């Protein structure tokens, strides 16, 4: 067997693990297509206040008026047929707090995913989004006692409007891009987190998102506010069942780190290979605050995601750690944005991508350091690994630096797995596939180690799994 074929079959992800579904009874189904009626329907069903209704209608107008960004982005976007997508779907269940309240078939789905029970002890709370609404939410007593608010965004806007309205849509305005406008029009689900001043949430807060109805787009909206001096880590992971027609996932995630706060946001994205994943994620870091995005993209057909940090306060720090894996038929178009807006702010971007088979991975970055700022620093590193001769990788950074007080450096490299390394390992008795697996793991190892423990284990397992097929 020629080496390339061998490798491409060996690295094919076992997607059957997430490929299952149960019949669902959707009490509330907005049907397919998008119009102002759809929005009224969503607002009525969710019982939302009028300001949200207005907000959504305005967002829809913006969405409709904005062109597809295909002058720079992939033409594949043109294959999204907005009128064939369901924009709202909910189980009609109230988010339940105790595990016992969760319906059995939903529980089965989660068991297949291997989510909570054993992890429950470790994780502070589980917010599992089954389709649009949170079905299960549980915050450990301790976290609740600390005054931490952790709930679905719909509940957040109803129960804590005083905090919610202050920040909602402020980090990512509706008109930021076409898809943030779409999300603003039809959002449902997602998390709302508020951490009071000085509170350090010891355990990561975790939510699993799943798409489980054909042609159903998921538009969750997450807002996390870490008040002065607080710390929080949020984890988001997703798997989705396989369907034949493309589905759309377009989330908006806004983070606000007030003075001295620290937020870490971890994503492991493993949608099935027919999902368009077009996500807008941005944080504002105030004085001495730190925001770190840890982002891993394995699944989806086309992912476009560029987590950003607006460094608004003195000495704020932003970081993006990104791993992307693109296999046949996949395009991982990911990157980072760092907007320096105060003195002595620092940012760091490390991106590693692996392209397999006919996969394509793209790094797109933006670093902006305006004039009259002093002591701003940016460091960007992008490394790409190409496994087969048909794989493709692109790098498109854009860096603007003004003034003498600042510095930035950007480096990128593209390479393949070193034949010498493989030869060495084979000579030591490893099969070619094992050697490849080790080598790929080694390539991403320094980043994987930065993930929370259970995620890094999961990730390593995933990479191993891809290599497994070729053994023997």
């Amino acid at each position: 067997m020629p080496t390339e074929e061998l490798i491409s079959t060996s690295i094919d992800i076992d997607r059957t693990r997430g490929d299952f579904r149960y019949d669902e009874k959707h009490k509330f189904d907005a049907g397919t297509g998008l119009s102002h009626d759809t929005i009224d329907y969503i607002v009525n069903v969710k019982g939302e206040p009028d300001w949200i209704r207005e907000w959504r209608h305005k967002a829809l107008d913006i969405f409709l008026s904005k062109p597809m960004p295909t002058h720079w982005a992939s033409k594949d976007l043109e294959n999204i047929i907005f009128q064939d997508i369901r924009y709202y779907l909910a189980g009609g269940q109230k988010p339940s707090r105790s595990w016992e309240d969760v319906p059995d078939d939903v529980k089965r789905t989660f068991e297949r995913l291997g989510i909570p029970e054993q992890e429950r002890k470790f994780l502070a709370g589980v917010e599992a989004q089954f389709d649009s609404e949170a079905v299960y939410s549980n915050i450990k007593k301790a976290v609740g006692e600390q005054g931490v608010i952790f709930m679905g965004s719909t509940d957040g806007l109803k129960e804590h409007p005083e905090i919610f309205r202050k920040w909602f849509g402020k980090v990512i305005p509706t008109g930021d891009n076409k898809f943030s406008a779409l999300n603003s029009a039809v959002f449902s689900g997602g998390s709302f987190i508020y951490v009071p001043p000085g509170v350090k949430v010891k355990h990561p807060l975790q939510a699993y998102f799943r798409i489980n109805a054909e042609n159903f787009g998921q538009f969750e909206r997450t807002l996390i506010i870490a008040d002065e001096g607080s710390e929080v880590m949020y984890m988001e992971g997703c798997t989705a069942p396989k369907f034949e027609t493309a589905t759309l996932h377009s989330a908006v995630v806004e983070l606000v780190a007030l003075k001295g706060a620290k937020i870490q946001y971890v994503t492991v994205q493993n949608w099935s290979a027919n999902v368009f994943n077009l996500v807008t994620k941005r944080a504002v870091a105030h004085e001495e605050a730190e925001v770190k995005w840890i982002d891993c993209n394995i699944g989806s057909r086309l992912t476009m995601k560029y987590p950003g940090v607006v460094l608004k306060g003195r000495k704020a720090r932003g970081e993006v750690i990104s791993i992307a894996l693109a296999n046949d038929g996949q395009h991982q178009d990911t990157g980072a944005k760092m907007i320096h807006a105060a003195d002595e702010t620092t940012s760091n971007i490390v991106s590693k991508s692996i392209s397999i088979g006919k996969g394509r991975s793209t790094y797109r970055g933006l670093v902006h350091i305006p004039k009259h700022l002093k002591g701003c620093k940016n460091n960007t590193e992008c490394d790409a690994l190409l496994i087969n001769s048909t794989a493709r990788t692109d790098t498109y950074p854009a860096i603007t630096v003004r003034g003498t007080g600042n510095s930035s450096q950007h480096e990128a490299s593209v390479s393949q797995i070193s034949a010498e390394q493989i030869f060495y390992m084979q000579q030591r008795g490893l099969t070619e596939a094992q050697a490849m697996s080790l080598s790929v793991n080694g390539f991403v190892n320094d980043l994987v180690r930065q993930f929370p423990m259970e995620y890094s284990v999961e990730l390593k397992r995933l990479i191993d799994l891809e290599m497994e097929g070729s053994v023997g």
Partner: protein
Amino acid sequence: MTETTAAPAQLLSAGPAAPGQEAAWEQFTKIALPTRNDERWRFANVKDLDLGAYTQPQAIDEATREELLGRSRGLEKSAGRMVFANDQLMAREVLSESLSQLGVVWLPLEQAMVEHPDLFQQYFMREEAILGGQKFAALHASQVRTGTLLFVPRGVEIDLPIEAFHWLSGDNSSCFPHTLIIAEERAKVTLIDYYESADANAPGLACAVNDLWLGAGANVTYVCAQNWSRQTLAFQINATVVGRDAQARSLFAQLGSRHVRSESVSHLRGPGGRSDMLALTVADSAQEVDARTFQIHEAPNTASDLLYKNSLDDKARTIFSGLIRVDPGAHQTDAYQKVRNLLLSDEAEANSAPGLEIEANDVRCTHGATCGQIEQEELFYLMSRGISKKAAQKLIVFGFLQEVVARLDQPAITAKMADLVHAKFETHR
């Protein structure tokens, strides 16, 4: 190509320069000016591209001719020299025997067109401008009146560099310098273009095209010293086509102009080919230097190495947007791209967008972009040795740029470039 009349027409209503250039003129008028939303013009101040003020090339009187010939000082030793002013040939001197070797063609463009129609047919503007400058390439094609055509037949090596001076003279005049170098198998040659303005403050428009064609094993060095007046709007569109085992080396020194747009494409078309793309910029006041590059690896075993260095003072802006592309099958590609910006003032702005598009896996491609300022320690060290702050700064900037010119490996040209950089420093402040 017509005689220039006493009262030159406004460029935008002038029409083509001569019969045969109508199609290009039509194309020029059809293509819209670039807009901010065009990715290929990202960061650029597109409002500055209005051509309404400029006239067709103005006539040169005898006194000006004498003056400009006197000011056309290049290297101490060169193989030959042509001097143009406002696209009119002022002088052509063959100084070295190597230039009159059998088969070498070194002629003003309009003469070459008549005497060597085959070369013209095969090589004249055959590579499309693909980095956003189509409109200006079309303008050039519709207005070009003269320039240099250099054809070096197989095996011929011309030891000394050939020089061409292009002068821009008069208020709001335009000129359209053209350089076409064709090096056959194993031919070797170096050519330097000097772009100068008669009056350092006269507004003007310069729209140049330079194309290099390298046959198997050829070795071509091309240097372009751009020093138009501070009020000039300038375009440079370059294509370099590198054949099997050939070596191309180009250096663009960006010193003059109010706003210069430089587009440079290397096509690595034959296995074993190599292209070194070099540029240095000394930008101050409100100068904008907009450089776009493209390293296209079309064949396996090719190498490209790009080094662009910019020093920015006052309110200067630089843009570097470069792409390395490795086509499917172009294995064993070795591509490198490095852009470094040295910011000397708080108002200066450096934009860098180094890009990669890789479709082959057995490659080594790296790029790097940095922005920084003079290290206070270095400055302190020099000042503690009794050097004034200003002089120390210049030394450091010069040292920073030296790496680029040193890469030419031709000490005489390196020294000439250093002189030009120093002269620019002298005019500043």
